[in-house]
């Protein structure tokens, strides 16, 4: 086992532990920290998939923007230590775990049967080629994403204004 393998296994372990923390933690703040750990783990996996630009974007967008947004929402929605724990009843947890295990078994069969196994092909896509793809073939989706984000910002502002006017 080489050093790269060891680091890779550590990254996978960190990702899975973060996901389990994000799902099973009793406090929403711990769940948020688990989400951050998962994002960093996925960024490491992107580095192993030869796409460092995506890893950087993952850290910038998810850790830098989405998680901070959720943290502000956690701070704004009041004293969470007064509210009950995140765990619901045992029956509901059992039902959710049942659904999760069933989908896990189904998709394991799917993954094992459909996708090819064998040698990994050489991969030489660089960041420059991703940019060329965006500005040559995917110009319309790229512009639509910016439009979507502008509309989302306007919608969030309108929601906040509407709530204040109603009070």
């Amino acid at each position, binding site marked *: 086992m*080489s050093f*790269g*393998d060891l680091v*890779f296994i550590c990254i*996978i372990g960190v*990702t*899975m532990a973060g*996901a*389990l923390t994000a*799902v*099973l933690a009793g406090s*929403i703040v711990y*769940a948020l920290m688990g*989400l951050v750990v*998962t994002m960093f783990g996925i960024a490491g*996996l*992107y580095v192993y*998939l030869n796409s460092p630009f*995506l890893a950087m*974007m*993952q850290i910038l*967008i*998810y850790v830098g923007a*989405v998680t901070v*947004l*959720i943290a502000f*929402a*956690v701070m704004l929605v*009041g004293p969470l230590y007064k*509210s009950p*724990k*995140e*765990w*619901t009843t045992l029956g*509901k*947890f059992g*039902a*959710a775990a049942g*659904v*999760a*295990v069933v*989908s*896990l078994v189904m*998709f*394991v069969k799917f*993954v094992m049967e459909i*996708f090819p196994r064998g*040698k*990994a092909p*050489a*991969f030489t*896509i660089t960041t420059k080629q*991703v940019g060329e793809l*965006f500005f040559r073939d995917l110009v319309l*989706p790229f512009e639509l994403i910016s439009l*979507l984000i502008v*509309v989302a910002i306007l919608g969030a502002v309108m*929601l*906040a204004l*509407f709530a204040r006017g109603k009070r």
Partner: protein
Amino acid sequence: MTDFFYNHLHVYLFVALFLLVSGILGLLYRRTLIGMLVSMELIMNGAGLNLVALNRFVSPENATGMAFTLIIMGIAAAEAAIALGIIILIFRKYGHIQGGDLTEMKD
């Protein structure tokens, strides 16, 4: 040419599958809306990891999967902004954000 562990497609697919399953678990049993949103982000990250891994191993001659993952990131950011706006609005109106207790539209 040694066979590295990280040069297999199935490893990445199983990590993405784990993210999807834990996201489903959290989405079904979380009490607050913010917890559900965190689980939703886990599911979207699993989808992005799947796309990049398949782009790397199945069709390595173009970068469509990576571009698609970037678009997913933009959509997830917009979705989180709107969802959190709605959650804060719900908190102002009802005083809590527990998903099971929002039953006004039931009757």
